């Protein structure tokens, strides 16, 4: 009983609950025949949202105003350049990944340089950077779709023991993120900065270093997600990141991370990512038009956050 109560005190439970209800409603259309197919598809596509969502979550944890709008453009540029570099050759898979990560590092550097040196609010700084990054993606190969190396395409689209490989990658990244948040000094630091930057500074936390690393981390995760997504969907497209702008923010907040900063939540990201995918699938399955579908998505997001009850007090 108390275990149940404490479970419902967890901020991430609501996104999981919502995801489960919607999953159930969807499989009931086929009386359960679609269970495996839908679950696998949900895990696959949630994986990409999870990866970018975790990066975004670290940034949002840094406190009010911190957000990275350059995620979509970074995904696009990393995917484009990596696939161009790999040029369908299996031998170049690793260099491709390294280049994608390098791009993430450069974008993160640019973001924080603007935020710090020009004191631009992150929302504007990262938006400006995203325009430049998007231009760079166009400039590199003008939107030509180059196929991924066959091994990589194979890896990203297949399953291990019934679990999609991309979901396994996302799970590993989530574990790493959870560990960083809860077990390391760095995790304490970002939580502290998110609660009060002046207090963090006076407590001797290297505020700039920590924020810088966090923006780097977010951009690197975005570029890794771009790399994987490009391989998964058979080539990089110039607009491939665009839907991850809203998604990356939505999964963070629906997942129970405090938008006011200081409190992050890894399991919630998974619940919210599955939820975001399943909502669209359910509404498509029920044959609802785009208008109704959008309205329902919005109302469900609002209901989840109402149930979860906004800013919670139970955090340690």
């Amino acid at each position, binding site marked *: 009983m108390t275990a149940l109560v404490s479970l419902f005190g967890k901020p991430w439970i609501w996104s999981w609950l919502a995801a489960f209800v919607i999953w159930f409603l969807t499989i009931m259309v086929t009386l359960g025949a679609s269970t495996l197919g839908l679950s696998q598809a949900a895990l696959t596509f949630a994986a990409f949202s999870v990866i970018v969502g975790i990066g975004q979550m670290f940034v949002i944890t840094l406190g009010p105003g911190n957000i990275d709008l350059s995620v979509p453009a970074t995904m696009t540029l990393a995917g484009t350049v990596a696939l161009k570099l790999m040029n369908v050759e299996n031998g170049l898979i690793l260099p491709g990944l390294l280049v994608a990560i390098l791009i993430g590092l450069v974008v993160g550097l640019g973001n924080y340089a603007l935020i710090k040196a020009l004191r631009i609010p992150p929302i504007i700084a990262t938006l400006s950077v995203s325009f430049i990054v998007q231009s760079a993606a166009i400039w590199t190969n003008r939107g030509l779709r180059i196929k991924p190396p066959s091994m990589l395409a194979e890896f990203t689209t297949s399953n291990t023991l019934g679990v999609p490989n991309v979901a396994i990658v996302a799970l590993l990244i989530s574990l790493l993120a959870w560990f960083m948040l809860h077990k390391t000094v760095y995790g304490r630091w970002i939580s502290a900065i998110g609660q009060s930057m*002046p207090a963090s500074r*006076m407590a001797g936390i290297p505020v700039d270093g920590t924020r810088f690393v966090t923006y780097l981390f977010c951009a690197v995760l975005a570029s890794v997600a771009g790399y994987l997504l490009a391989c998964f969907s058979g080539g990089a497209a110039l607009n491939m990141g665009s839907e991850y702008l809203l998604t990356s923010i939505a999964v963070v907040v629906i997942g129970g991370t405090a938008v006011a900063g*200081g409190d992050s939540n890894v399991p919630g990201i998974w619940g919210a990512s599955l939820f975001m995918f399943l909502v669209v699938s359910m509404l498509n399955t029920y044959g609802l038009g785009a208008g109704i579908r959008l309205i329902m998505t919005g109302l469900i997001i609002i209901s989840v956050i109402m149930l979860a009850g906004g800013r919670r007090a139970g955090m340690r």
Partner: protein
Amino acid sequence: MDEVLKAVIAVDGAKVSFGAVRALDGVTLRVMSGECVGLVGHNGAGKSTIVSVINGGLTPHEGSVSSNGERLERYGINAARARGVRCVFQELSLCPNLSIVENTRIMHRDLGGFGWRRRAAEIIEKSLDAVFPCHGIDSGRAVGDLSIAERQMVEIAMAFSDAGTPPRLVILDEPTSSLDASLARQMLDHVRRFVATGGSVIFISHILHEILETSDRIVVMKDGRVVTERPANGFDHHGLVEAMGTVAKEETNQRPAHEQSTAPLILSHQTAGRPFSARKGEIIGLAGLAGHGQTELLLALHAAKSGTWLPERDPLVTFVAGDRRLNGVFELWSILRNFSVASLGDLSRRGFILTDKEETKGADWKRRIEIRTPDMGNRILSLSGGNQQKVLFARALATRAPVVLMDDPMRGVDVGTKQEVYAIIREEAAHGRTFIWYSTEMDEVRLCDRVYVFREGRITAELTGDAVNETNIIAASFEGVAA
């Protein structure tokens, strides 16, 4: 019974609890017109909570509030204000983004209508002039641009201002914490004038001589109850401290001026005035009128000696905040995490936090500095203001930093705790730690080996040993004013 009839406000048997904490455990308090009631008690005794009850912000779970003999059933903020209850809260509570005039508008609900700006300006200026003659504050300025002392002055003047409903009962919850001696004097004088014209005041302060000389009656609270209540002349300083339940310690005398000039130099800083330097094991005071550059120096020292990009393996300085909401506590965190945040370097290996070590150290300091909580895992905000301040002390002292910067850290700390902290400071200094201590309280400044006196952002005097005394400090603080 006719006492109740005359009482401006009478609270009877008020009980308030926040979760498991009994903040008020049946408090009965009366305030007559034309009297100043001094309210004292240790940190977390429930003073602020009773204030909230009287000003209508908090409905007691049990007990009643009555005014002029009439029991008030639906007592709330607006009912209180309509009866002329005004409050200066412990923490600053103006809107920093608004001008003083606009804040006046917010405070007085029925000031609206065409030309309210002019009227609001008149009201607040009149009150400022009355409480703090020669204050020099322009009512068009934004509150955020004011110094902390000026803000407190505005807040006090706001409480005494009259925009139709004259103030009848003014509650002052630690109003002088950021004021220097001369401003505090002006305020206390005004309180006496106000009381003399039939007004009532509830005055909360940890500076006991203020209470003793200003109040007509003193109410002592302890653990959510009123333990003693007597006319002010029935108390002396010692008796008051005793009544509060803290063992009266020996009045701290100045430290014997031991040989310091031979200790190695640990910190020096170029300032606008005289150069600043600190030696190992010294307790250095920063004195002068409030808001004359002491905090700025501390911030500059901190900024100069700590990196913001890379973690410091052996930080030279650590900081104890005075304005704990702004740069002290982490509100989402537990007491333990708030305590350990500055020493994570020592409590971790290769970036991983050693939880056991953290808990042991937390328990150790909880005992050492007597943080009043059943569990260090509770949220920091469950502590009373004074206890939060103790956590901040423990946070700084638990680091290995050889220099501790203190930004008037004793604000709102009760006498007993203060004595304990002074003892710890002396002990640490004896072991070679350096303390750089800004304080608005003369008692504390007198504990220092050496004192720098500030005036208009510059160091104007340096006092050592026997020269550290009230006369010299006040003389140096006002240096140049007379000329």
